[in-house]
């Protein structure tokens, strides 16, 4: 092993010097040590937690009511069917939040005094809906709006989607506004100097850069919304949570809730990884020297 492989050296590179060979050896040793240390410590923590939980006086009962494999298998199809509703609500709500959130962010960023009332309305909106607990918005929209008797009858999931859009667009608007303010004014200047209108400057220059700056924060809100979609169950929509609740009532076992919970995690994971990858790719091609 005179020339260590995998160091990224091209085949044509000259043989490393004595000093470099020694450095690589040292790095490899350090690398191996780190792996061993982290593996052992992880194992120790897992074992301690495991034995701690298993040796609690009530573990047998808890295991029976939350971790029953047979109940999990039996109720899985039912919960999965409910999850399909969550996914559909999530898709529709995401589009709604993107549109309304962007609109609110843009209105809040308007400088012209003519737009003062509009700007105030947008500010009041974001203040109100960021402060109101989602569950209360759900009740107001889900039971209050239909109660007015002017809207055509809608299934509960439609009202639930509206409530989620109302709440989450206020968060997303604030995140986007922060991103828009982080775009350097010279970018607007350059765009306007080319003759682009205010609207085109926003759409083509400011917003694309703003979204890149706040992608992690937007993802955070998206994942948060993804699981809050489960709250539409309180309006009676038969989603994953509601299906789990029904299954729980039938089986006197809480395992269906755990199944639903795991399914929520499973659908959020790929989204998080994909956006991370997209953000990383954009950064790599648009910014040099991004390693530090």
């Amino acid at each position: 092993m005179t020339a260590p492989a995998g160091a990224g050296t091209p085949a044509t590179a000259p043989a490393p010097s004595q000093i470099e060979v020694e450095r690589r050896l040292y790095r490899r040793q350090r690398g191996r040590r780190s792996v061993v240390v982290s593996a052992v410590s992880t194992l120790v923590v897992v074992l301690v937690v495991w034995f701690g939980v298993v040796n609690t006086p009530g573990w047998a009962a808890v295991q029976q009511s939350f971790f029953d494999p047979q109940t999990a298998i039996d109720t899985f199809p039912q919960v999965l069917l409910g999850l399909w509703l969550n996914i559909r609500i999530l898709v529709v709500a995401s589009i709604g939040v993107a549109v309304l959130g962007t609109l609110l962010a843009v209105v809040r960023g308007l400088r012209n005094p003519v737009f003062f009332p509009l700007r105030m309305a947008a500010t009041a909106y974001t203040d109100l809906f960021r402060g109101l607990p989602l569950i209360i918005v759900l009740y107001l929209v889900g039971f209050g709006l239909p109660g007015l008797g002017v809207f055509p009858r809608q299934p509960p999931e439609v009202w639930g989607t509206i409530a989620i859009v109302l709440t989450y667009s206020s968060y997303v608007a604030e995140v986007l506004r922060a991103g828009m303010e982080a775009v350097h004014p010279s970018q607007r200047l350059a765009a306007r100097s080319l003759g682009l209108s205010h609207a085109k400057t926003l759409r083509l220059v400011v917003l694309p850069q703003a979204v890149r700056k706040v992608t992690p924060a937007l993802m955070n809100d998206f994942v948060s919304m993804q699981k809050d979609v489960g709250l539409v169950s309180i309006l009676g929509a038969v989603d994953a949570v509601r299906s789990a609740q029904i299954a729980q009532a039938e089986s006197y076992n809480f395992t269906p809730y755990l199944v639903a919970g795991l399914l929520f995690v499973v659908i959020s994971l790929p989204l998080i990884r994909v956006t991370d990858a997209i953000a990383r790719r954009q950064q790599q091609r648009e910014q040099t020297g991004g390693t530090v």
Partner: protein
Amino acid sequence: MTDTSETGATRASRPGDGQEARGASDGSVPVLELRGLRKAFGEHEVLRGIDLTVHRHEVICVIGASGSGKSTLLRTVNLIEGIDDGEVLLQGTDIADPRTDVDAVRARIGVVFQQFNLFPHMRVLDNVTLASRRVHGVPKAEAEATAHRLLARIGLADFAQAYPDRLSGGQQQRVAIVRAIATSPELLLLDEVTSALDPQLVGEVLDLVRELGEQGSTILMTTHEMHFARNVADRIVFLHRGEVVEQGTPADVLDRPQHPALVEFLARVHA
């Protein structure tokens, strides 16, 4: 609404203001004419009655110490700064008029900044074609053909698909210049385009500016490069405390300065 570049020009002769014939004394309307231009930031008067005429195909270098109002002058022409008094006539139209369609006016003027200000989220090609496509409505293929031709001319054909951050400062600034001229503007404003560049990159940018001047572009630029101004400018304008105190051919202004402020300025620049 009024969104074509022609509209700005037709607004020139609004009946009643009796100024239709302005600038016609020498037979042709100047590309740009400033009359008694005044601008103050609070108490501080930056421009104190500027009179300046830029004719077609002229390259004019504005020189002066920091704070003399050079940059502000260019910014008022591009309607980035409002003015407090005076007139800014673009091809005979008073564009300082509040009824002016500012986007239409800006579409007729190319601007290049000290800090390049390329759009980092767009490829070089998209930077160059943005105004053509989105402001002037040029079809994509045609705009890209023009952009490729211009990029080839400045030796950056291979960078069309690259993002601006991959380019050196000099390359970015040349792309910025190409972006400004891609729509064939009537007037090109260059605001200290080499001030943010390493000394060895200044040359490649100035060579491009020189080439544009030789090909007939009308250029109003501020610069600290006296050598360049001497070789390329048709006229040099010396700005001192918000006033044009001296202007003329490079030889007159640089070799036979009259005003004490200009003498002092040149002594410091040459030192």
